[in-house]
């Protein structure tokens, strides 16, 4: 292993400085140095998805992302999805559908659906299932998670409609 270095990261829109070896998995940095407990250790092999975070809006497994690979990319964790008092629509959908039993995999499920909606604003059932294919849930919460994902897609659509409506309005008024 190489000696520790001082690294700046952009996590949840803030610049954070940490000192660690560059090969340290981002997961441990987020959890142990930044006290962000959303991402969970599940396998350390990129297989289960419990540690998912967004890097530049794409869902990745933070257990396999070396600190040294992050650079100036934007890291967003479960905690960073929602502002102080509001919920991200995907989080809201998961809460409304009670899409957790033990909830340990929940972080990855939510991050995966946020990532999906970034790249596909109108996913169908098979898009949703594919996006979750490599996210493991052992409690068997799949039905509720799928329902939450469908609901999240509806929220995303509604949000788009309302923002495009307001954009139209702006256009008209200008």
């Amino acid at each position: 292993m190489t000696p520790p270095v001082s690294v700046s990261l952009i996590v949840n829109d803030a610049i954070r400085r940490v000192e660690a070896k560059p090969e340290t998995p981002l997961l441990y940095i987020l959890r142990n140095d930044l006290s962000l407990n959303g991402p969970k250790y599940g396998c350390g092999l990129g297989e289960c998805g419990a540690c998912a975070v967004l890097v530049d809006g794409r869902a990745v497994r933070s257990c396999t992302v070396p600190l040294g690979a992050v650079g100036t990319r934007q890291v967003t964790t479960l905690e960073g999805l929602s502002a102080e008092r509001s919920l991200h629509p995907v989080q809201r959908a998961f809460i409304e559908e009670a899409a957790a039993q033990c909830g340990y995999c929940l972080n990855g499920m939510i991050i995966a659906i946020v990532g999906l909606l970034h790249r596909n604003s109108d996913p169908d059932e098979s898009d949703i299932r594919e996006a979750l294919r490599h996210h493991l849930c052992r409690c068997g919460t799949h039905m509720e998670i799928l329902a939450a994902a469908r609901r999240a897609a509806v929220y995303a659509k509604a949000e788009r409609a309302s923002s495009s409506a307001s954009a139209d309005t702006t256009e008209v008024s200008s």
Partner: protein
Amino acid sequence: MSTHCEIPKSAYMAADDALLIVSDTTMGDDAELFIAIGKDGRVTAFNGHVDLGTGIRTSLAQIVAEELSVPFEHVDMVLGATSATPNQGATIASETIQIAAVPLRLAAATALHHLLMKASARTGVALNRLLVGNGVVRASTGENWSLTFADLVSGEHMRLSIDTDAPLKPASAYTLVGTSRPRVDIPAKATGRWTYVHDVRVPGMLHGRVVRPPYAGFDHGEHVGKSLISIDESSIAGIDGLIGVVAIGDFIGVVATREEIAIEAAKSLKVVWRDSPERPDLNAPEAALRANPATARKLADRGNVDLALAGSAVSMDRTYVWPYQMHGSIGPSCAVADYRDDGLTVWSGTQNPFPMRRDLALLLDLPEDMILVERLEAAGCYGRNCADDVTADAALLSRAVKAPVRVQLSREQEHAWEPKGAAQVMDVRGGLDLEGGPSAYDFETRYPSNLAPTLPLILTGKVPPVSDVVQMGDRTAIPPYAYSNLRVTVHDMPPIARASWFRGVSAMPNTFAHECYVDELAAAAGVDPIEYRLRYLPDPRAVDLVNALAERAKWVPHKTWGTLGGEGDLLYGRGFAYAVYIHGPFPGKAAAWAAWIADVAVNTKTGEIAVTKVTCAQDSGMMINPDGVRHQIHGNVIQSTSRVLKEKVEFSTTAVTSKEWGGYSLITFPEVPDIDVLMVPRQDEPPLGVGESASVPSASAIANAVYDATGIRFRELPLTPELVLAAMNGDKKEPSPETPAKKRRWWKSGLSAAGAVAAVSGIVTMSSPWRPAIATISRPDTNVYSDATIERGRLVAAAGACNVCHIGPDGTPFAGGRRFDTPFGAVYATNITPDVENGIGAWSYPAFERAMREGVSRDGHHLYPAHPYTSFAGAEDADLQALYAYMMTQAPVAEKPPETALRFPYNIRSMMAGWNTLFLRNEPFRYAKARTAEWNRGAYLVETLGHCSACHTERNTLGAEKGRKAHLSGGFADGWDAPALNTFAKGPVGWTEEAFYDYLRTGHSRDHGSAAGPMAHVVQVMRPLPDKDIRAMATYLASLNDATGPEEAAAQKEAAIIASDAARANAARISPKGERIFNGACATCHQGNTGLSSLALNTNLHANTPDNIFQVILNGVEAPAILAESTRRDAPEVMSMPAFRETLNEMQIKDLAAYLRARFAPDKAAWSDTESAMQRVISSTH
């Protein structure tokens, strides 16, 4: 810091204003506390069970709020903290609501009664004229007063014993129980604010990891606890941040300041273990279970079984086999322990806070009352996982280092060591009588499991490694049907692999036999399977359930299989099964009744079974929280479908080998069936456990459905494609394609050492082997070199990739010491920093140039051609002069790398003189006039400074690069296959100039994949080269290939991807285990990932040998984003490929490689002699 400590019971006992309901007031403060109502009117309720993810925190609060008539939000639940809650044993057997909630409900009723009495006394209103709701007491006659619980509790400390006769609210008056309250924990869990045990951090906390012995997954036998031979602590002495190593018996742990340092230390610690004894084959567990010593215990014997068997019209003896399975908690177990002089506190995800406290007391020689167990939620477990083990691990480490320690088990450790759900063998002897009824039912079951003692107790020798036997194989062992001649025997036996209770404990396998067998009877009798069951089902609630389910699922009675037909390769089928889960000591208690109708589609070509829909009916008695019950049913249906179709723990002869999710695969979202749940309303009946029941009919329902589709009975699990195919088609094997002649390794040509001596010494005579030393100089003054010269030298060093080979062991540039294994022995790179003693600081330029061009060191000794002087010979003078200048400006390193010491005769360096006569052409590089300047520049870089041929050309028996056609046609270096750079390239897509450019510049080409191993280092050190040099190299290299245009490359790429998609089914047939590993471990990144190229394009999969594939699987690949840092083209992947060295064994890697080859290089023959490749690769990694 997210420290989580419950308020201890003593604080409630000491409160001035409180109403406490306890087990027995005469016990004083030692009594167990069930309910505490504070002066603010808030209710705290205590239960010794824990929430394993089923939502009992919410359901129990509903029960308490209902009985007390307070708002749900006024109730806080405290679960499983030894400092506060009553000892109600382990949270097992779906007992929480059915059993553990009973005293809680009575305590609430006791409290309410007391409060009403008090209100009556205070207001003078008779008890029967008081109304209570929302925590407020009023008079039914409408007087203008009200008293809150806060009013009633304030002013005194009152303690009451639970009154078992307290008046309970009638179910008809329920407003809260029976409604679907949202779970209280989910909002915090969905936003990252919930504290799981994994998230506990206490001040001064250190990080620990354990190193487990090699007999993974076995906890008994003489060697257990006595297999450690030695630990070499010096192997990790250099790790900064290491706090200590702890070893007691076979228990080993390391503690460090940071988590990743603890991981590194645990991985690097050199430990020598005794070989583990061989175990019976548990992959096909039937024989092992039959041979395991057992005691027969007869549970039922009615009628005359033997007589009836003898008189059967049709005899049907059947054996059903259940595999070892695992809980597979998604989060490996974790705990924090803080051992101090005044006692131990542990933060644990245990299922059993009180039994675990007893184990910790035994392990640490502490009285139980000096141990505090704070129970926090962990990842869901469905029986006993490693939660207690890791808590004991943390306690041992904390005691040793005198600081709080957090221990997180690795995925591999949790998989290997969790107490498994045991394999089980069920035999049924029976048959049909003359009327088609069951003649007899003689059932025997074998269940090798116990309670799995906490592992550190065994590893440290505190508890002898001898397995005890527990009687848990009897659950639902009695079939539900009224067989008039019935005998049921359970063979109680100790575990073979470490095993303990797992959801549906022994009942799920027993029901697999019961419900498949009755289906076989129905088929043999020519009767519809449901009708046949109903003839013999005496339980009216069961009959109601079965009828309700049949109606809901629109069951069509049928007397033979195959009535649903199929389409294309698919056959459709439907299967039924019913069970009531009996838990607790025999004869046990019934939990909820459950029945399944499963719909399946069986693919006759691939053998895959899709469970398309499950209709599940359940009678749960009263449902506290119907949504909670529904979610439990969903969970059970999905988890058990996964177990039936996919799950089986694999073993070597000594240990568990399924150590991640490829080797033990779970159901994925696309495979999840549609589920229709029918919950029978029984709100007037007592509540029943719902945590396991819906799992129990799964295996038989699915197996019966597969029979209905195919006419084949499967009596062993899991129902993998290979099992189905073997049964449907026999064991037809694909003819294996011819293996083409392989490129021979250059040292495998049969040259003996003696032959080499003869060959080389013959040459020696032809040229003088002795070269003079060149005098030393004092280290040159670097001021004489211009900045431009030094910069040119820097680029020459980059083009020459000097620092790939000459890098120091700690990353110091040019310090030397890297080891290269050649067929002649290990060669170590030298120190080429300008250190006078150890490097080249005393070398004049002529000495340097001679070494570079002729392979002769300053002192006259010959260098081995691992130093590629045959390439450098053609370099331009100006380049070598600049390189010399640059090297002299480097920081000197006063370290001497190991000396190269080849074995005889290769240690006679003077022989190299003869070698040079044969193979060294010391002449300037010849530029081709007809070519462009760019091409010539590229050729010069590739052929001289870049010395690409040193790796990418095959060598002859004397270790020299072969000429002509072999030049750049592929070679072998440092344990890696270096692919051809010319027309002999094996990949499916031709190399374009653009592809070479991308690859050399960023380490990644979209049509070919990423650089790994030594080539990744080459790309890294070439970073300083200007784009135009990289472009020039690409131009030259592209010219060596058949001109491939971008359009042609695109077409080749598309064709390769289409071919690999088409090869999917065949590859799965060739290597079904490999496919599962690919899907579980690899596909997450290597399928549908836009950041990486398709494996169908990867040169390594099209290579003649699997060396590079083995290299990357064993050792991982660094994130492409690190290599591509300078350009950030194409949003390169930021994830690294993990090393699977500790996770997959050689057999699994070979299975995986076989699948990868068949799937992604379908036009190539299967790799042969993978064993040699594996040994080469393993020995090449130091």
